[in-house]
């Protein structure tokens, strides 16, 4: 039985992540008075890309060819290392928050290298911007996650989420501050407004799209899917570490079902929030972004100070 739960945990992230992206797109469409595509459109896109032929630049090396596999595989490994619907799965081998942060950094590393590999100006500048933002975001991310681990006295993500709740204790304000810091980093790392525009191919505004501009076919599918996975990972981290309500604490069919329901509900609330933010906010100028990231850093510092 336990094996089944683990298998569920492994396939959960890639299975649900396109749905989240679909929901955000739907919300944005509704707010723009459009009907929008179905929320399952992202699945169809990925499936279509997977069966297409590919064009690869003659300048590309094995880094470009191999990067999508690494980037995608990393999101799966991280998907196993974080609490999703069950905190009783105590993964003490890879479930440390620092290993999760640095595993995600491997994905960023290869994504940025792949952007530089084809030698177009777009890819290079996309990589440069991506690395600038992720370098500044890393401090805020580590400190935000660390706030929660300081409250629970462990750096294991499963152990943190198994507390049940942080808000009923004395730690309401630090938790909320750290979550605010985390949310900013989440927007930065997953390429949402006001950091990046996921829907654009305009050279001045692209970050993530610029890096994967040269991809096509199955490699593009993997890259898009990996981006969706990364979004879901951050959403799940935000939901389970700062508001660990309803997560399955013990083994049992009903608690697991409730765990999944709660997780999806929390993630969908985050999706709605992001959809609304993206609809009523403009993208920031690139050199305004560090201010936002430093704000996230300071919020987390404050949170730690208050514990």
């Amino acid at each position, binding site marked *: 039985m336990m094996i089944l739960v683990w298998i569920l945990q492994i396939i959960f992230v890639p299975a649900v992540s396109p749905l989240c992206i679909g929901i955000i797109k739907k919300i944005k469409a509704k707010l723009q008075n459009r009907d929008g595509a179905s929320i399952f459109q992202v699945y169809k896109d990925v499936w279509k890309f997977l069966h297409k*032929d*590919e*064009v*690869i*630049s*003659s*300048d590309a090396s*094995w*880094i470009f060819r191999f990067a999508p*596999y690494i980037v995608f*595989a*990393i999101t799966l*490994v991280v998907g*196993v290392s974080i609490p999703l619907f069950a905190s009783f799965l105590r993964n*003490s*081998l*890879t479930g440390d*928050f*620092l*290993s999760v942060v*640095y*595993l995600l*950094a*491997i994905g960023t*590393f290869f994504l*940025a*290298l792949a952007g*530089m*590999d*084809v*030698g*177009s*100006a777009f890819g*290079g*500048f996309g*990589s*440069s*911007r991506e*690395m*600038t933002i*992720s*370098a*500044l*975001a*890393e401090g805020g991310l*580590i400190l935000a996650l*660390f706030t929660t*681990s*300081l409250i629970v*006295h*462990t*750096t294991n993500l499963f152990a943190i989420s198994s507390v049940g709740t942080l808000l009923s204790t004395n730690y309401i304000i630090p938790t909320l501050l750290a979550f605010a810091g985390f949310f900013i980093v989440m927007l930065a790392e997953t390429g949402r407004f006001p950091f990046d525009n996921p829907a654009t191919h305009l050279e001045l505004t692209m970050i993530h799209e610029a890096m994967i*501009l*040269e991809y096509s076919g*199955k490699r593009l599918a*993997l890259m898009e899917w990996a981006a969706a996975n990364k979004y879901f990972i951050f959403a799940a981290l935000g939901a389970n570490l700062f508001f660990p309500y309803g997560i399955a604490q013990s083994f049992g069919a009903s608690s697991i079902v409730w765990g999944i329901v709660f997780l999806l509900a929390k993630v969908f609330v985050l999706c709605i929030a992001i959809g609304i933010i993206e609809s009523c906010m403009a993208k920031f100028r690139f*050199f305004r972004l560090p201010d936002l990231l430093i704000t996230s850093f300071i919020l987390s*510092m404050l949170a*730690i*100070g208050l514990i």
Partner: protein
Amino acid sequence: MVTFLSSGLNFLLLLSFFALGAFGSLLVRKNDRLANAWQSFFGIVGALWGVVFSIVVFMSNGLLFTANSTAIPFLTFAINIDRLAAFFVFIVSLITLFCSIYGIGYIKHYYQKYNIGSLGFFFHLFVLGMLLVVTVSNGLFFLVAWELMSIASYFLVVYDRNDENNVKAGFLYLVMTHVGTAFIVLALLLMYKFTGSFDFASIKEQSLLIPVFVKDIIFVLALVGFGTKAGIIPFHIWLPSAHPAAPSHVSALMSGVMIKTGIFMMIRIFLDILQPVPLWWGITILIVGLVSALMGVLYALTEHDIKRLLAYHSIENIGIILLGLGSSLVFVSLGNMPLALFGLGAALFHTLNHATFKSLLFLSAGSVINQTHSRNMEEYGGLIKYMPQTAFFFLVGSMAISALPPFNGFFSEWLTFQILLQGVASASIFLKSIFVLASGALALTGGLALACFVKAFGATFLARPRSLEATHAKESSFSQLSGMGLLAIFCLLFGLLSGYIGPLLAQIGNNLGAFINFPTFIAPVLNNKLVAPNSYGSVSALALFAIFILVLIIVIILVKYIINRKQKIKLGATWDCGVDLKPRMEITATGFARSIILIFSGVLRPSMQQEIEYHDAKMRYLPKSSTVNLSLHDVYRVNFYQPLNKFITVLSLRVKTIQGGNINVYISYILVAVIISLFLAQ
């Protein structure tokens, strides 16, 4: 067998390998090939011997022997190889081994140009000096070894003497290293004044005789003296110019090992000899480490000279090591010994890891420079197609230094993070804020280092060649590749075995002075995963690696062979908006880092000079050519070294007034000096 291997005789044998290597290469200096063979052979054999010797000594609880010589008072040939020293002998030998293997092929390009014999002579003296520095236990003898190491490395820095910049860099290095030595001499003399001995063991026994404020002075002197060698900011200015000037296999040794001797002596003096440790020492070292780590990586980002970039990363990593060491000192003074040992283990593990990945990076950079005849990254590009293996090894080194699992850099940074987090959990609000700042700085450093190595790898190896030289590059020779390959394997191996190595290194502290009064300490259990203190967390390198490889294989099989088998791949040109794509349209190393530099312009103080030449100089309508010169304000030179220099010059001018040039005056000065010293001696 084991008793011989761990005997003093064997240590002398080890030293004699390098002495033989040194003087032998001088003898055969007439023949380039023979000189190369001689020095490489003795380098490899001696280093292998050193690796075996250090492991045996480490396992057998140390080695201590003294050979008194009555010829010179105080100068006793005293050797004390405890676990700490054995660990550093291991690092020196391991890196020397791979550098010597690499050297066989690398030295060839100096044939007919420079004297190969003298390269071997100084190389071996340099290694000999480092081996002695970490093993001697007598202050005066230590200074001799320290000078041997410094002078030999000076001659290696100026080895490529046809380049004027190298000679300048060497001179700066020589001056700075001796300023550092002056501080060290002062520290040793102060210890001698109160304990009456130059022997480290007896100073340690009588360290209670040294008054507290004198200990504080010794701490500052030693921090500046050894910090200069380690390259802490602001005493680092020699490092980015001296390390790149040396031949690459020597740069690898200097950056990977020599600067660590500064760390070694800090551990020796602060944690072993001078006890007890006040709290502010640890806090000072934490702050120094924090500044060095952050500024080191920021300066590295501004560089487009590949070896200078790596040299600045050495400063960053020294900072990370000091973060571990500083927290260890803090916990020692708080009396929390398990945490202190854990912090020391983190610092030592990072020392080992930095030695492996930094020498790997320097060696692969050396191969690239050898092929392209330039250190400027803007003139590279696309080298992955011409030097695929070198590119792969550089990639491994980049991932290790950016702390990406499963390579070794991640696990020592993980340990450092964990010890800093333990510090944040401490009660005092002041300590807490220091540790929060330190962990924030470490996190930021990690992110910036990642950006810097995307820049270094991307600008060097990816996209299209940006110069003609780059298109003529060829893969390096077999010996160079095997030197780099073995180091790359060790980068992975130290990462995968981190669960075993981590606890082993924490044991080094057991026979240091700071921990000697805590015999109840339980030896850590060897585990397949690294475990943080107070069961805060754990990470298993083997599991991470296995899961990642498994998932990767499954994904590749699924996507490539099951979902999509009939797919065709077409090769085409990169999309270029309809124009002809030129190498000049690629992003450059400078362009890549520009946005980060602008964000940190408050600390980095970038400057831009624009010169435009006109066809019509009077009217200035038609520009002919324009040059943009980007650089940084040299804050240290302008605000620290130049005022100091000015002060010394003014002082010297004042002193000049008593120098009349008349010999009678000088004799009377001597007379006065003799009388005064006679009075003082009473």
